[in-house]
């Protein structure tokens, strides 16, 4: 029995393992998902990092917890830096964590911040470079996925508010490889196509990775270069994308973008009705003011002067007429009176009057005989009475 078993104590073994492990993995980066996360009252963090095939207990001492930039939680994928330590009392090894970064998000966030800074420095976000959104676009370009919820939302809002608008869709992938290129190209195409008044570029909500295309420089530059005003409508209400900063207007969701881009048709028709009403009122006012002016002209002194003159003249004519009448009557009356008296005088001198009183006229051979001496015996004479003439023969002369 010369074979002597090389027996060592557990403590010794553990010491050797500890030394071996700790020197082999002095400072490493490991990637895994957090589970069994616990924050002890002492302030130390205890959790397990795992992937599909294995798990690794981890501890983060209180002194290092302060350096965390985010609150770790179960299910979170992280990259942890630390060293492997062995805890002899339990015969277990664990990761002594110095630092944790969220996996992926950390790098994306970093890229986001870098790009945001760079583009801001170039002036891509300056308000002075923002184009005004047309108030009443006739044609709206939409850049999104034709199978996405965003298009449905836009369709339903536009149908409700303003269905007479023309909508042109450029269907693009909005996430995954190539999405940024497709979005940027679609913006360029819309510009080349022409006739589009405003563009809505966006997609429904999703994780930061899902929305990532809208944080790409290619998309930001295409938005900036667009001659057509662009409304960004990238899913999430809260988070801003780079596209949101460059766009001429940022809408929190595709539905909100649609609300912003068109006026409600009913309201618009009401406005038009009001404009017509105002117009009608204005022209009525003007016409009645003209009526008033005409009426006041009609009653004005100057306008009525000619009529007054006519009236005055007419009055004068009447007066003259009247005085003429008076004079005429007077003259005529006098004349008539004279005529009457002359007539009487004449009548008095009329021989017939004398004859009537019994006198007669004697004529011989047509001549009046005024002396008895003119008639001799046997002369023929005529005697005129007032009522006739007789012939006589003188019997005896003087």
């Amino acid at each position: 029995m010369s074979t002597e078993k090389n027996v060592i104590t557990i403590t010794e073994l553990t010491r050797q393992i500890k030394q071996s492990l700790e020197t082999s993995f002095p400072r490493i980066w490991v990637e895994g998902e957090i589970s069994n996360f616990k924050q002890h009252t002492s302030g130390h963090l205890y959790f397990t990092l795992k992937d599909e095939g294995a798990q690794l207990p981890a501890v983060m001492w209180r002194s290092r917890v302060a350096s965390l930039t985010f609150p770790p939680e179960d299910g979170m994928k992280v990259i942890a830096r630390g060293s492997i330590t062995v805890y002899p009392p339990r015969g277990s090894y664990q990761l002594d964590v110095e630092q944790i970064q969220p996996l992926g998000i950390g790098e994306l966030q970093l890229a986001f911040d870098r790009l945001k800074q760079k583009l801001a420095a170039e002036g891509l976000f300056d308000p002075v470079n923002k184009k005004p959104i047309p108030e009443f676009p006739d044609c709206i370009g939409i850049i999104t996925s034709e199978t996405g919820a965003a298009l449905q939302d836009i369709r339903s809002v536009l149908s409700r508010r303003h269905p007479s608008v023309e909508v042109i869709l450029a269907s693009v992938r909005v996430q995954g490889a190539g999405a940024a290129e497709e979005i940027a190209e679609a913006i360029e195409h819309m510009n080349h196509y022409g006739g589009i008044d405003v563009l809505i570029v966006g997609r429904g909500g999703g994780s930061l990775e899902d929305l990532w295309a809208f944080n790409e420089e290619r998309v930001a530059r295409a938005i900036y270069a667009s001659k057509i005003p662009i409304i960004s409508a990238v899913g999430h209400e809260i988070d801003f994308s780079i596209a949101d900063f460059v766009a001429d207007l940022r809408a929190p969701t595709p539905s909100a973008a649609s609300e912003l881009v068109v006026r409600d048709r009913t309201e618009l028709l009401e406005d038009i009705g009001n404009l017509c009403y105002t117009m009608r009122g204005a022209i009525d006012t003007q016409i009645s003011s003209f009526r008033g002016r005409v009426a006041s002209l009609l009653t004005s002194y100057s306008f009525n002067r000619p009529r007054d003159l006519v009236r005055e003249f007419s009055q004068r004519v009447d007066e003259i007429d009247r005085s003429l009448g008076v004079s005429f009557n007077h003259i005529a009356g006098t004349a008539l009176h004279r005529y009457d008296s002359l007539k009487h005088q004449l009548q008095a001198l009329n021989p017939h009057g004398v004859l009537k009183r019994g006198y007669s006229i004697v004529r011989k051979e047509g001549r009046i005989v005024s002396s008895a001496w003119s008639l001799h015996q046997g002369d023929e004479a005529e005697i005129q009475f007032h009522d006739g003439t007789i012939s006589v023969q003188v019997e005896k002369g003087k």
Partner: protein
Amino acid sequence: MAAKKLDKNSLEHSLKRLEEIVESLEHGDVALDDAVNLYEEGIRISKECAEKLRSTELKIKKLSKGIEGQFTLNESDEV
């Protein structure tokens, strides 16, 4: 390349013109003959606008670019 629609026909242009007309009429310094003409123009424009807004079905056309760089518009299927 689709021809850019005449600005004159756009709703925006029509409404701007209508507002201008209303403003001139309200200002009241337009000769009556001109005012009546403006009023008639305004009524015509308002009818045109209402006509434009009357369409009740939203149409979405799909823009695609051919291999030779030409654009085509297709009536979009119900998507």
